[in-house]
Every structure is written in C-alpha cells, then in structure tokens.
C-alpha cells in the first residue's frame, strides 16, 4: 500500500513539473512598464492603445485592435485589471499600476497572457502612435503550378515544362526560394527561364513564371515530374511550411530512332578438370548483336589465386590484370581471343570477366555505358602426376640427395685423381 502511494506521488510530481515547464497554462507577464498616452502595445496582431490617461482620477482608458480593427475597450483605475480574449483560448490581462502626469500622461501597466505558449508570440512591443502604426502579420498562400506542353511524347522528343506561382494569401510571401529537382530519365536540353533565386511574391500579384525549360525523354515509360517546392516567410518574417506544386505526368513512348549496341561476351575453356601445373586454353568471344557500334570495349580477367595467366593473343596485362581493349567494335562484328592459364594450385575456381563498353544510342548526348560480369563454369584443379613427390617427408628427399651428393662427390674425387 505504501509503495502504491509513493508511486502515485512521484507520478503526480512529474506531471506537475512537465506542465510547469511547458508553460501552456501558466500566466506569463509579457510587459511591466510605462506607456505614454497615445502609444500602444502590440501582441501579435493585437494592439492595446492607451487612449486616455487621467492622473487626477488615477484611471486610464484603453482600446484593443485586432489587425487594425477595434475589438474591445475598457477604463480601469489604478490597481484594477481587465481581461480580453486573445488568440485561441488565450486571454490578456491588463493591470493599471499607476498613472502619472507630464507633458503627456504616462501609465504604468502590467500585461499578462494566460493560456498561451509564449514562444508563439512573434510580436511584443510598444507601438509609437498606437495601432495605426502597427505592422500586422498576414498569411501568404503560394499556388505553384507545374505544367507541360505535351503529356505524351516519344523517346528523344522534348517536352516544355513551365512552373508558375501565384500568391492567393493575404500577405506577401517574402524571400521565396524555389527548388525544382533534376528529373530522372530526362535530360535538360534548354533552360529558357532559369532559377529566379530568392524573390518576393506579393499578394494580389498576377501569376508569375518561375521556370521554363525543355526536357528530352531518354527512356520509355510513364513518369510523374518531380514537384517544385518553395520556402518563404510573410512580411512579418514568420516562416511557413514549404509549399509544393503538382506533379504532371508525361507518357514517353519508345521511339524508332533509338539504337543499341548489344555485345555478347562468351568465355569457354578447353577443359574444366586439369592436373596441377597443366595448362588450360581458353577463348573469349565478343559479338555485337545490336544495331549500333560499340566503343571502348573492355574485358578484364579476374584470375583467382591458384590460376596463373600465361598469355594470350590481343590480351595485355595492365596493372597485373589481363585486359582486352578494343577501341571500336562494329555492328554484327565477332572476334575471338585465345588465352592460356596455368593451374598452379589444387582447388576449385571460377574465372570471372568484367565486361564493359560504350555506345551512342542516337538519343542521348552522352554515350551509354554498359557493364556486365560473366563467370565460367567451375574449374577443378586436381593433383598433378608427380605432386606426390612433394608431399613426402623430408627424409624421402634428403636420403636420395645425400646419396646423389655422395656419388657426385665420389665421381669428382675420382675425376681429380685421374685428371692429369
């Protein structure tokens, strides 16, 4: 029982501290100071004007304006307070502390905000001359339209993209920055109206063109163009969430002008089971089955440890990698390259080839690069005929060597004996 009570107390304490820290429900004094008659105090879009001050009566009258429109007024004596509704459920309590005379009478006020998050206050200041001189914060609303001149094109054809913006809000959009991501599967061929940079879009302005550019389709398919986004503030400097445009859809059909180089790389070996130290003869066949010539055709041999490249026709070793390189390779051309490998170590291996080539598909401004990898069947390297000789204990070699050494020594000794 005692434990439950203690837990409950601790939980309540934690809730209390959380509420206290958020400051949501707390009354916060925003201002405590003097204001000259005729001036006002602005809290966001509310302005409390000190209309009249009566030092002799120790009282003062106030008018409350929201966005320049009068919403409330009150007369209070020193020591009295008055509350009026603020944004949402919040209330503002104005307390008259004192009224003093002078060239112009001056009131001393305390302004407290209840049920309001202080951090939401974007304006809290004295306004000389009162509400007429206050700056009110509006809500700019940007409508960004991304449109295309054609919704269906062929690969290689161009579509014109236009992006416009219109401010339909009640405040200017200030420091507007647009972002239009690069479009995949399309290439930018002409930038008619480029990035405008940081601009202001005033409310009431006519529709404004932001981007105009041409995109060329490089691949068939149905594509939704990326939306344009904009970030901005209102005139009062209040940030707003980014606004996005629509995503127009463009259908790209495969065109008849697109050509491809289609190189087929085939590697064959004369045998896949060999004895150690035997040689393997291989052939790399390259054939262009496509309708465009290829350039920079490269085949890199990835030789595993255990196999050794011995040499081959038209194959150069570059940075220890046997490589076939062909500057160009015509349509329907076929070429064979032979090479030989030595099976150095017993084991199971595969021979990999990294193939790549470039070609012009007739559409793109840049050459298309194609890469692939091919792997041969498994190569089994088994023990050589005489490998058992190297697997014997040392004495198997030492004894014959000693005997041979002794024989050689004896022959040399005899030779010296009989050499005149």
């Amino acid at each position, binding site marked *: 029982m005692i434990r439950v009570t203690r837990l409950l107390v601790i939980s309540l304490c934690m809730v209390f501290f959380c509420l206290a820290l958020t400051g949501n429900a707390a009354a916060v004094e925003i201002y405590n100071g003097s204001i000259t008659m005729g001036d006002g105090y602005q809290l966001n879009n509310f302005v409390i004007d000190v209309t009249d001050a009566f030092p002799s009566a120790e009282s003062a009258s106030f008018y409350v304006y929201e966005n320049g429109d009068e919403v409330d007024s009150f007369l209070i004596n020193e020591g009295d307070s008055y509350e009026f509704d603020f944004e949402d459920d919040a209330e503002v309590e104005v307390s008259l502390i004192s009224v003093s005379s002078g060239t112009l009478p001056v009131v001393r006020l305390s302004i407290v905000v209840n049920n309001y998050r202080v951090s939401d206050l974007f304006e809290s200041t004295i306004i000389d001359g009162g509400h007429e001189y206050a700056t009110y914060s509006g809500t700019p609303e940007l409508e960004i339209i991304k449109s295309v001149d054609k919704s269906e094109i062929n690969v290689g054809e161009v579509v014109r993209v236009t992006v416009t913006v219109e401010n339909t809000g009640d405040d200017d959009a200030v420091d507007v920055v647009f972002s239009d991501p690069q479009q995949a599967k399309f290439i930018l061929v002409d930038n008619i109206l480029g990035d405008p940079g940081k601009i202001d879009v005033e409310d009431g302005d006519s529709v404004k063109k932001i981007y105009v550019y041409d995109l060329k389709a490089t691949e068939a398919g149905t594509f939704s163009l990326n939306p344009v986004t904009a970030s901005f503030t209102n005139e009062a400097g209040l940030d707003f969430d980014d606004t996005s445009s629509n995503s127009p859809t463009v259908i790209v059909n495969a065109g008849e002008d697109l050509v491809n180089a289609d190189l087929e790389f085939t590697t064959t070996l004369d045998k896949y089971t060999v004895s150690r130290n035997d040689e393997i003869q291989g052939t790399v066949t390259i054939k262009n089955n496509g309708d465009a010539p290829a350039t920079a055709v490269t085949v890199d041999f990835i030789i595993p440890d255990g196999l050794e490249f011995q040499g081959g026709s038209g194959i150069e070793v570059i940075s220890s990698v046997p490589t076939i390189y062909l500057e160009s390779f015509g349509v329907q051309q076929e070429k064979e390259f032979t090479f030989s490998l030595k099976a150095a170590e017993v084991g199971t291996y595969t021979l990999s080839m990294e193939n790549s080539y470039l070609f012009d598909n007739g559409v793109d401004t840049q050459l298309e690069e194609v890469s692939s990898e091919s792997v041969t069947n498994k190569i089994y390297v088994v023990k050589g005929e005489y490998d058992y000789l190297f697997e014997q204990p040392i004495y198997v070699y030492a004894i014959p060597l000693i005997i041979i050494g002794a024989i050689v020594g004896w022959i040399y000794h005899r030779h010296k004996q009989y*050499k005149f």
Partner: protein
Amino acid sequence: MLNILIVGNGQCGNRILDAINREAFGKKSRLAKFYSQQKYKSNVQTIAINTAVNDLKEMKFTKAKDRIHIPHLHGVGANRNVGKHVFEENRTHIMRQIEERGNFDVCFVLTSASGGTGSSFTPMLVKELKERFDYPVYAVVVLPFREEGTLYLQNAAFCLRDVRESGVDGIILADNQFLKQMGGNVESAYNGINDMIAKRLLFLLDALDSEMMMVTDLGDFKTVMNGGAGLATIGFYEAETDMPVRSAIQKALSPSGLLFSSDVYKEASRAMVIIRGDKEHLSIDEISTEVEKLSSAVGHVFKGIIVRNGELPQVLAVLTLESASELEDLYSIAVDAIKYERDKKERVATVKDVDRAFSQIDGMDPSY
C-alpha cells in the same frame, strides 16, 4: 702380400701400364674407375714416365700422381741419345719419385724397344734400380713392326742390348710383328697387343700372390727368369666352353698363345705353367701329361694350379729362351737398317745438293 712396382716408360710403356690398370678394374667400361676398385691381390704401385705430355694425358686409368712428366719439348723424337741425355738430367727427380713409393719385392719395367723415351730411359732406369735396390727388375720389351722404319729398327737393336747389359733380371719379349696377326687397323692392333700383355701380366701378378693347389711363387718365377739367355716370353690361353684343360695348355704354348714367336719345345730353357679355373675343369692327369711333355723338352717346369669356382680354365706359361731365331732375324734386319741410316748420313754430308743450288746466286743481289 707382394709389393710390386710397375713402371711404364714412353708411349708404349704408358699404354700397356694404362691397360693393366684398366684390366685391374675388372670392367671394360671407360667409367669403371668411377664406380669400381682395382682388384690387385698385391700392393701394386704403377708409375708412368714420359717426356711427351700428350701421351701421359691420354692415359685414363692411371692416377695423375702416378704419371711423371719429364719436360723436354714433346718427346725426344725417337733419338735415343737425346733420351739418354734427358734421363741423365732428370735422374734424381725420377728416382726420388720411385723411392717415395717404398720398397718392393719385384719390379716390372714396360717399354717399347723402338721408340725414343722408353728405349733410352729403360736401360738407364733398370741400371739405377739395380744399383739402388735389391729387388729383381724385369723388363717387358715390345719389339716393333719390321716395316716401321729404319730408326725404330736400330733403336730396337741397341735398346735390347742396352737393357740386357743394364743388369736386368730378365727380359720378357713381346713382338708387335708377331702379334699383328690378330688383324684390324693399326689402333685396334696396338690396343689389342697392349691388352694381351696387360692380361698376361695381371694373371702373373695374381698367380704370384694366390693360394694354389700346387704352388708357384716369386722364387719360382725368379728361377725361371734366371734360366736361358735372359730372354723370356709369355703364353696364355683362356679355354672356351667344354674345352679340356689339355687343349688349353697346348694352345697357351703354341705360337698363337705366345707374345714372341718361338718354338718353345726347341728354344725354351725353363718354364712356369700356371693353370686357373674351376676344379671341375682341371683334370690333374691332363695337366700332368702336358707339363711332363713340356718338361721332357725344356727341362724343369714349375707348375701352379689356382682353383677359382665357376671359371673356365686359363693357362699362363712363362718361358725363358735359350735361343731365339726370330731375334736373330730381327738383328740382321736391324744391322741393314743401321748401315742404311749411316750411308744416308754420309751421302748427305758429302753431296750437299742443296748447297750447290744455293751457290748459284752467290754474289747476286735482288733488284726491285
């Protein structure tokens, strides 16, 4: 164990010595020296002496330390007088080499009678050996082909006489003229003759140091060699399959088995017959019959039998000669050769045809 010294003088002596050393390996292969050992029963020391270094280099089975080169151009050019002079100059060196080998029980000196170095060195070497040591020295002298030339014939005649006068204990003759019957080209004939001599000497050395059923030893050999005119020859025959030992003995004593042409039943003075082979082939009766037949003709015959299991009968006969008709024939030819050479020298000295030819331009000078 006997201590035996064999000295090969000159090209012929060197080659016979090398043949002996090769035969001692028991193998015919040129590589036998690399994998085999010489099978001398005795302590055999061999020394090859020559003034021609190329002859020494040609030897394959004689150790380098056993080849003594006496520097004099490349030989003495068949001139015995030059050879004698060279020996005199190198006497100390040669004898020191021999002395360093120790003492011996018997010495054989191998030489050709007709060449330069061998024919001139041998008599002087034998004389030195006899003066310095007390072991018997026997010379194995090879006589030349009769058609080899007058210089060789006169060298042979004088060499043989000098050797005989040097105090040698006996001369074993081998005659190239007689042995050339084996045919073949000159090189194979020479090699064949060298092999024949080598095989006989090795058999003799083996016999002198073997346990025998019937004993012949070095003493018997000395007695045989002391007989006759100091000249001897050796007969040898190796029986073929199923050949009775009697036939082998007869073959060994026949001219085809001898190193020097002789009718041993008429010219021999003493003899030693050594028979070796498996006892299965050695019929004592047959041996006794043949030996008695020989002894009835020449007098005393020493007989030795060596039993070697699995061997076919081999017969060696050492025969000293009382007379040698073939040697007399040789000397008569040699005398003609000596006269021919002398006459030619005198003719050249008196006629001087070449001088007459030169005299035609006396007092004249060349014009250009």
